[in-house]
């Protein structure tokens, strides 16, 4: 459940009500940033957040994202190596 979309905070629109403009692929909407207000609101600009029902619910951790992608990439390389190995083995065994 709970459709959530990464969006970038591009401007502060109402400091008192903790509202900012988020952009998802060129589509902009005002969102509430209360849940991610771990710093002065202006410093959120440029950050990526997970947007749900008009609220920025979490900031997206770029390092963690990179780590996850890294792990996937490693998996891919391991797999390629494995396949190359298997291919080599098969070739050795004479199976075309």
């Amino acid at each position, binding site marked *: 459940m709970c459709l959530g979309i990464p969006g970038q905070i591009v401007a502060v629109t109402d400091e008192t009500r903790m509202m900012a403009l988020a952009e998802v692929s060129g589509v902009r*909407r005002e969102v509430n940033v209360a849940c991610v207000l771990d710093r002065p609101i202006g410093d959120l600009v440029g950050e990526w957040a997970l947007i749900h029902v008009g609220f920025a619910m979490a900031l997206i951790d770029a390092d963690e994202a990179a780590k996850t992608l890294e792990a996937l990439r490693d998996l891919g390389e391991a797999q390629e190596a494995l396949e190359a190995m298997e291919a080599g083995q098969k070739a050795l065994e004479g199976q075309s």
Partner: protein
Amino acid sequence: MTRPARLRDTRVTLSHGGGGRAMRDLIDEVFTCTFRPDAMEDQARLHDAALAEPGARLAMTTDSFVVTPLEFPGGDIGKLAVCGTVNDLAVGGARPLWLSAAFIIEEGTEVALLRRVVASMDQEARLAGVRIVTGDTKVVGRGAADGLFVTTTGVGVIPPGRNIGAVHIRPGDVAIVNGVLGDHGATILAARGDLALSTDLRSDCQGLGHLMEAVIAAAPDTRAARDATRGGLASALNEMAEAAGLGIEIDETALPLRTEVTGMCEILGLDPLYLANEGTLVVFVPEDQAEAALAAMRARPEGSGAAIIGRALDTHPGQVRMRTAFGGSRIVDMLVGEQLPRIC
């Protein structure tokens, strides 16, 4: 008509619908002064040699237009009403000749808005090479209509020997669209304002008559075409698959989509395959004429974003499937109702 203007109201009142002089003034000074029909009778009397050709058939189609808001980035209800009906003629292989236009106007509608809508209809009609030959206006009380509804009916001629229709699609035929999907639907969703979304999107609203003629010239065995309006590409393809009794397979990676449309769909949980278009068609041509058809489309501005998106198959008759970008496959069914923005 050089007599001084008599229509001095800035908004339409019920008087303008009463069948009297106020109505005549509205019609004269907003509608007929632009459309310039031939006569004062309440019917157009028409002749076109193409209709008399042996084997020629007359094509007739109608649509009511009820868009909110009435004006939006890329068009207005008048442009829609002309393009929509011209396109319904064109995708059936007919050359559009004449349109009628009937207006249901809510009391309080701005006369200036009507003038803009009429001007935009006139412009689109000229571009499409059709004439608006007869019309009607009705005024309803406040709250009895949502500003303005326009119903256009189009009459065209199908040249002898031309047979375009979904029943003619054969397995192996190639499906081509003329451009990006969903711009109109996404633009309208944003323009309504109630979801508080803003974008730089514009409706794709445009006439497709010349494009269709170019495609048919380039691909003489063009099988069928459909404009992917309400219900989007998915509905158009499903209808065609059903009528043809064939399966259709499309390739997700081949679908032309604008970033903002994808973004709006992600936010609202919508599928761009179901978003409305107003200037987008899908055409089926034999495989060996596909490149020619594609080139003919791309040579015109309405087809500059054209792409081959799939083909007809003799498997899974009546069904549309999509190879996903991820390597899977799924059915692209018709929607039940309209797509609703969702959060889960």
